[in-house]
């Protein structure tokens, strides 16, 4: 009775990942671009958890989710710090304006 096919979760994960990619392509604000990355990571996490459930057994999938979350947190911290520096130097959040490798 309490069964949901794992494939449902996987499809949802795929859709979210696709939306994340789209957001990454279309968003121009440096902060929202970071958010798109977070969305993709979340989609991947969902797939991990779903696969883990399908496997039963030891929860290696969860461990990977755990690591992904940790890395995402680190990435967000550094990324936002970079965003702040960019804004201070370029006075703009638009990613198109950050087209130089050197300020």
């Amino acid at each position, binding site marked *: *009775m*309490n*069964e*949901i096919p*794992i494939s*449902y*979760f*996987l*499809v*949802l*994960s*795929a*859709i*979210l*990942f*696709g*939306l994340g*990619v*789209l*957001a990454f*392509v*279309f968003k121009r604000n440096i*902060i*929202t671009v*970071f*958010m798109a990355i*977070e*969305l993709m990571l*979340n989609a991947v996490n*969902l797939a991990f*958890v*779903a*696969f*883990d*459930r*399908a*496997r*039963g057994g*030891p*929860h*290696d999938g*969860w*461990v990977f*989710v*755990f*690591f992904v*979350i*940790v*890395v995402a*947190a*680190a990435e967000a*911290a*550094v990324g*936002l*710090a970079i965003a*702040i*520096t960019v804004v*201070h130097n370029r006075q703009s*959040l*638009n990613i198109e304006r950050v087209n130089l490798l050197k300020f």
Partner: protein
Amino acid sequence: MTLPIILFFVFAAIAVIGALMMIFFREPIHSALALILVMVALAVLYLLLGAEFIAAVQIIVYAGAVMVLFVFVIMLLNAGEEERTNISKLAHYVGWPLGIFLTVELVYWMLRAPIGARATTATIAPGDPTRDLSMLLFRSYLFPFEITSILILIALIGALVLAKRDS
């Protein structure tokens, strides 16, 4: 239609709508709120998958810390509406079709995944899942775990160095 399936569809819909809102909102803070919505919906889905600990961590770390950081930075930089600049022609014309193609392809391969096709949430893992997770984390994966802590430390210092104004 059983209760879990209804719940699944409700929260899957919330997640997808949230992701779409994130794309279509122009104010960064609204996008961030939409993303928080996605994350909370995902946490509920984790609960449906029996991953209580991951659900809690999802909310504590993602919704409660990472996104707070985002909101905080948006507030700090007082980021207004996105300006409309000319994005590259390629992305403009091919972006949506390509994105949708990618999504469809992913869905296709996900459905064909050998593991996902036949399994349901009925597969129950033996034992206390949280205990198993901790055993894995602190036995098998102890080294990567310690490495991530160093990563966090590096990120911390890096963020500090980057965000600190040159005096």
